[in-house]
């Protein structure tokens, strides 16, 4: 079992050597957004200092060079998720736009009154609200896959829920519970029922080997900023035949073949879905992030996070027993290193503020998953999420900091 060399990985992330009030940064909010390694920052700086130019529009060499780098990033993304074709990858502004694109472009073309879309109780708002909007617009019906008590999908009723459905849209990993869902099985169930399978890969893709062909998925959405890449760019992968048949989403430059006073025709993939000037520098940064992660190895990253997850589960339960409630599965085979918890009745907002005094950064809130919060019976939780640059020692710092919360609130 190769453990990651976390110490040297940390050196690649300049921000991790920052101290606040003389204490090192214990960044446990990567499920929210991840930090950036030097390789990504450098790629972006190099682009802006040396070869920034418009993409796919101008004929001069500088522009050709920039276009090459930009399309090279698309190829890197293709490889990273094992998509069949590079032009099946659409750059969006974030995963949210990617999911909206599917809901509105595929959805408006394929869904009418009474049509069924199946979601799960652990979805992020990004995979709920667009469907609510579509429901309000054209009367589609939403059905929900419930959860088991330990925070996995309860698949008992899945065939019935999927019966007659046109789409099943679900997360590959919960951003609250850490639960990893059985994506391949869920895709098969969707197809069995005649529905397409839309995978929200925001939390999964940064932490695991992703293979859309092995999954037999139809769409995959994820964000660059959660996988060590820049903010301002997300990815939609879609099956070519589906993307080809879809109407455009946003209108403007780059997505057209022709524009007349009385109408327009659309460009080929992926341009059809990339209206306007794309996130040029950000795509190049995303390409660098992918190369950085591949250099370390997604299998190794997953293995490392399983180790940390295991240590965190043991440490927190041993130290705090009934004072802590950790949501989600206890088996690290089906969960990532993201932990939502309740602690001694202290409101998560206050808890996070107190942890911050030790420079421990955790998120407090509903994590953009209010329906799930209602299932958990909480209005908010605190969430500590670990990534490749975190290790077991930070679990201990978290535990010590939790202990100190008691002092202030006097429990």
């Amino acid at each position, binding site marked *: 079992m190769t453990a990651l060399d976390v110490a040297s990985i940390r050196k690649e992330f300049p921000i991790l050597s920052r101290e606040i009030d003389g204490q090192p940064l214990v960044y446990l909010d990567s499920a929210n957004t991840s930090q950036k390694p030097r390789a990504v920052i450098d790629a972006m700086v190099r682009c802006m200092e040396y070869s920034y130019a418009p993409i796919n529009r101008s004929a001069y060499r500088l522009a050709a060079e920039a276009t090459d780098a930009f399309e090279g990033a698309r190829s890197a993304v293709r490889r990273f998720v094992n998509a069949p074709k590079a032009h099946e990858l659409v750059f969006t502004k974030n995963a949210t736009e990617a999911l909206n694109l599917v809901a509105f472009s595929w959805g408006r073309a394929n869904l009418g009154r009474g049509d069924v879309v199946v979601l799960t109780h652990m979805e992020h708002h990004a995979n709920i609200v667009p469907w609510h909007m579509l429901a309000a617009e054209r009367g589609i019906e939403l059905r929900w896959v419930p959860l088991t008590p330990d925070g996995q999908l309860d698949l008992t009723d899945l065939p019935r829920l999927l019966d007659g459905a046109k789409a099943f849209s679900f997360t590959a990993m919960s951003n609250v519970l850490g639960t990893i869902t059985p994506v391949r099985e869920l895709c098969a169930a969707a197809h069995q029922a005649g529905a397409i399978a839309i995978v929200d890969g925001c939390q999964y893709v940064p932490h695991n080997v992703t293979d859309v062909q092995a999954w037999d998925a139809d769409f995959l959405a994820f964000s660059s900023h959660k996988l060590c890449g820049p903010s301002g760019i997300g990815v939609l992968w879609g099956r070519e035949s589906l993307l080809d048949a879809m109407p455009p989403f946003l209108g403007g430059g780059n997505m057209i073949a022709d524009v007349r006073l009385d109408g327009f025709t659309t460009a080929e993939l992926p341009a059809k879905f990339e209206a306007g000037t794309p996130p040029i520098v950000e795509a190049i940064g995303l390409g660098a992030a992918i190369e950085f992660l591949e250099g370390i190895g997604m299998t190794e990253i997953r293995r490392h996070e399983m180790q940390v997850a295991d240590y965190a589960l043991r440490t927190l339960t041993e130290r705090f027993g009934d004072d802590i409630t950790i949501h989600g599965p206890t088996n690290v085979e089906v969960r990532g290193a993201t932990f939502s918890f309740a602690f001694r009745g202290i409101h*998560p*907002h*206050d808890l996070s*503020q*107190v942890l911050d005094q030790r420079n421990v950064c955790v998120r407090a*809130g*509903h994590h953009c998953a209010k329906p799930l919060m209602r299932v958990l019976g909480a*209005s*908010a939780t605190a969430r500590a999420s670990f990534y490749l640059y975190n290790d077991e020692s930070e679990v201990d710092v978290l535990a010590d900091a939790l202990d100190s919360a008691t002092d202030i*609130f006097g429990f």
Partner: protein
Amino acid sequence: MPGLDDLYREIILDHYRSPRNRGELPPPATHAVGHNPLCGDEIEVYLDVRDGVVHDIKVGGQGCSISQSSASMMSQAVKGKTVDEVRALVHRFKSMMSIEELDDADASVEVKLGDLEALQGVVKFPVRIKCAVLSWNTLTEALSQATP
């Protein structure tokens, strides 16, 4: 960088532990619900306004120490005040939270913040300002229902 003592003054923790005016009021009292979209906190305000005076106020919902103590102190501060006085207080409080500005006319009106001064430290924690202001926004909504 600001420290915790700026935030968690003793008086705040006191209101958090023993919130004043908790509960509900039956109709015809007006009722408004406010959400903090960032953290999920919810505040309910029940308001009994008659003849331009806030006769009674009750607060429900759940949230962090800042949102709860702010709601509790608010309920104490507005009870018995005229609607105009309450509006002036809301404005003064929001300007203390640096989300509204005082002009000369405002400055000349005397408004006492009292215990609420303890929440001044929240300004140094921008994310928490929304916690402190939540009950005040909900109050404003309940108020505008009461005095259409």
